[in-house]
Each structure stands twice: as C-alpha cells, then as structure tokens.
C-alpha cells in the first residue's frame, strides 16, 4: 500500500516534471540575467552556480536595486530570509524589503521578466521568509521551488491564484534542468 502510494506519487511527480520541463507554455527568459536574493539567503550563491552550469550569461549582485537592472533582460529572485545574511549585509528586514520592491518596480516599468526560485526547503520558510515570498510571487512569470519548501502548499495556492507556472523539484541540483530550459531558445 505504502509502496504503491510512493510509486504513484513519484510517477505523478515525474510526469508533472516532464510536462513542466518540456511544456511549450512555459515562459522563456533572455540573457543576460541579474541574480539577487530576496532576503539575503545563502541559496542565491547556489543559483549563481546553477546559472553558470546552465551556461546562462549572468551577474550576481547581492545588493542590487532597481537602477542596477538597467541593461539586463531578466531578473532571478532567490526567495527566503536569512537573519545571518541580513546581519552580514548590515541591513534589516525592512531595508531589504524596500530593495526588493524597487527591483520589482523597475522590472515592471522596463518589462523585465522575473523568475523566482525558492531552494532552501522547509527551513527557509516561516513568517520572515514568507513576507518575501508574498511580495515577489505576484510579479513573477515563473516559479521554481524545492519540494520541501512547499509542504504546506503555499506556492501551489499562490501560483494557481496568480496563474503562473510552478515547477517543483526534489532537490537543489534538480533546478538546473528547468532553469536551463527556461533560458533556451
């Protein structure tokens, strides 16, 4: 029974993944991309590593604001708050929210599409992280999330309501494929 359930759910997941990764409906993003976090998390560095592996022309700017987006064709926002990261950057959560909002505002004005990623799993959730998730998702064209970060279905619900495609992956390294595909022509 348990095995059957596991098989069905992994099959479903696989099908969903196949569909998600190859669907012609998924939005396409252009290069060069600017990568920054929403919440000064450590996962932003992992997205830079994945972008490098995917051959995406990108720059990582941890403190980017609206003006810094000039000249870029897409924005990758890595979601989740890290108090350590905020401390290291010497800013508080409100300053960080302001920075993120300025990026969203600029990308709206210049029509730069936003791809949101949440890779930190369950631990990168909670009130502070969710603040960033709720601020960013309405501006996103697509969302990639590591499954354990969507245990409560927040991403599923929000993406359905907003009508944006959501790609769920098992682990961080699995985010490489959908990332690559979303930048391929």
């Amino acid at each position: 029974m348990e095995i059957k359930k596991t098989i069905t759910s992994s099959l479903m997941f696989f099908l969903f993944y196949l569909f998600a990764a190859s669907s012609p409906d998924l939005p396409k993003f252009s290069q060069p991309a600017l990568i920054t976090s929403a919440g000064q998390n450590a996962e932003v560095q992992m997205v830079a590593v994945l972008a490098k592996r995917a051959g995406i022309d990108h720059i990582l700017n941890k403190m980017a604001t609206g003006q810094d987006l000039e000249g870029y064709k897409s924005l990758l926002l890595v979601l989740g708050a890290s108090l350590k990261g905020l401390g290291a950057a010497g800013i508080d959560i409100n300053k960080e929210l302001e920075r993120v909002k300025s990026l969203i505002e600029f990308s709206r004005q210049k029509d730069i599409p936003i791809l949101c990623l949440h890779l930190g799993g369950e631990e990168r959730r909670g009130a502070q992280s969710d603040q960033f998730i709720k601020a960013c998702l309405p501006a996103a064209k697509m969302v990639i999330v590591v499954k354990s970060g969507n245990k409560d279905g927040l991403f599923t619900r929000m993406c359905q309501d907003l009508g944006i495609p959501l790609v769920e992956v098992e682990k961080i390294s699995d985010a490489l494929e959908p990332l690559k595909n979303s930048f391929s022509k």
Partner: protein
Amino acid sequence: MRLRLIKKFFFPRLSLTIVLLILTLIIAFLAGKEFLVQRQSEPIFPSSGLSYHKKLSDYFPALRNTWGDTDVYIFEGKEPGGCILITGGTHPNEPAGFLTAVILIENIFVDKGKVVIIPRANASAFTHSDPQEGSPQRFFISTAKGKRFFRLGSRLTNPIHQWPDPAIYINPSGQKLSGSEVRNLNRCYPGRPDGLLTEKIAFAIMEVIRQEKIDLGIDVHESAPEYPVINALVFHENSSELAALVAINMESFGLKLRLEASPPNLRGLSHREWGDAAGILAVLIETPNASHGRLKGKPSPDLIVEGIDKFYPRASRSGRLFVDYPETGIPLKDRVGRHLASIISLVESFNELYPSKKIKINNIPDPNEVALKGLGFFLHSPS
C-alpha cells in the same frame, strides 16, 4: 592526672585522625591516578601514504616542550596541486571532529597536491574534561582485533597549562569576550606569538597555513542539537561560491547542508581569521553532538559513540531542536560520515573552481560504507 586526661582524650582522636589521613591519601592517590590517565594520548596509526610526521613546534619553536605542541600529518602527492589543511580537535569535546581527522590519517593516499592534518589542534584541551559534567574520560571503538580508546576532552585549554583567566578577554582581533574564552582556541585566531598558550597555538596554526602555503582550511567541529548552526558549513565570504557548490555536491550523498555566512564582526574564529589574516579559503563544518549539549541525560561512552539519549528525542518532538533527533540516536559513525561527505564535496568543488590547483585524494572512506560497516572497520586494528 594530666597524663591520664591526655591518654583518655587525645590518643583515640589521634588514631582516628591517622586513619582518616591514610584514607584521604589513598583516595587522593586513586583519584590522582585516574586524573593522570587523561594525559595519556591515544595512538594514531597513519596510512603508508604519510609523507611527513611533524610537530606544531616545527612551525613555531616556542611551543616545543609545552602542552600546546601537537602532531601534524602531511600527505603529499607526487604531482603538485592545491593544498588543504584539516583541523580536528579544536574542541576535544566534539568527538566527530577528532575522529574524522583520525579516519583520514589512517586511510588516505594523496596523488596530487597536499593534505595537512592536525587531529588534536588543542592538545592541552584533551588532557582534562569539563568540570561538573560527569563526562567519561574515554570512549571506545571496536576494530577487527580489539578496542581502540579515544579521549573526550574539554572545549577549553587545561587551566593547569594556562591560568588564571582574565575577567574580560580581548582577543588578538580586538573582540571583547568573556574571560574563559581566553582558553578557547577558536576565539584566539590569528594568535599572538608572545601571548598565552592558546594564543600561541593559534599563531602556530597560522604559521602552518603560511609555511605550507595552504589554499583551503577546513575546521571540523560538532555542535549541540539545540544550537542553530548544525549540519552546517560556515564559510568566509571569499568561499561563498565554494560553499554553494559543496551544498549542491552534498546532495549526491543524500545529505542537506545548511550554509551560514561567517559574520564579519565575529572575530577570532577560524572561518574568519584564516581568511582575513592568511587570505585562504576558510570553512568550518558542524554535526549534531548530544554529548556536549545542555539537554542530555547521563553522559556515557555509549552516548558519545551511539548518540542515544533519553531527553533529546523528546526535545526534538516538542520542536526545541534544529535537527531531528530520533530515539535511535545520531551515532558517531553517521556524524563522521557526514564530515567525510563534506570533505569529499569540498575537494570536488575546489577542483571545479580552481582546475589549475587540482587535488586528488584516494581512499577516503565512503560515507555510506562508514554508516554501514562502522568506524572500527576503517581504523587500524591494534595487534
């Protein structure tokens, strides 16, 4: 009359006093003997891949004939490449840090580049245990031909070797800390050549980094399950890309690694000062150790090796911990296995980022096999 009084009152008391004195001396002798057991160093049997066996005092002679002197094992490949420093036993009450270093020393061969391992970074702290903790002095690991013993020491330098503590300690990086931190090696970097013993040890380790031209330093620790930095890698900002790659590579072992940036205002720690003062890539890794946590039940050799505890699973169920703590415990072999996986991933990631400085280490025990076969399988059997 007076003599009779003396006989009546004094002699019985005198003999009682003598009996008590003798008893006290016997107890002191036995306790002293047990106390001194902690100074006996556990043997380490390096693999035949060892190139040099040095002493920390070879790098900083002021440490010679002090309790701060310690072994330095160097494995050098035939081909040149990058150079890694691995330190265990910075905190001898964190056994997985020490055992990871021992397992590496007893198994590895290096083909390319160089690996420098200091298993007992604070040798003095191995010679005593924390007072009022009731910690066992030793724990045991069974190998094919018999048991090996290892010491469980203290977080701090032995006060017999460095005393007294100041009320407030201002470390070499200028940070104000509570007085006892003056004996915490991981607050004393980058050390002081003319300072106290612990500061001298820190300075000597900086000398190893400079003289051996280290590229990447890995400080291997453990933390209590109620501490937020757990199953984690703390990285200097010069190592952020390395850290990200490591976390991705760790997934191939089925392990999740928490990344924590080293806060720039937290001074005196390896992951800060190795990077700032010597300019090398610097990381510190942590696994969950119940035996030095505050919530533990009775400390015993079994708690150290098997990680089974009465209270941690309860704390875990009520959401007080930063890690799942099962009834079956988090055994030392799993914690060492995790550290080995981190070290393998660190080397892989280093090679990916710095292909001209490639390092090739052979025969690092596979983390999954360590979990399956136990630590004893990968340790030299005493004959």
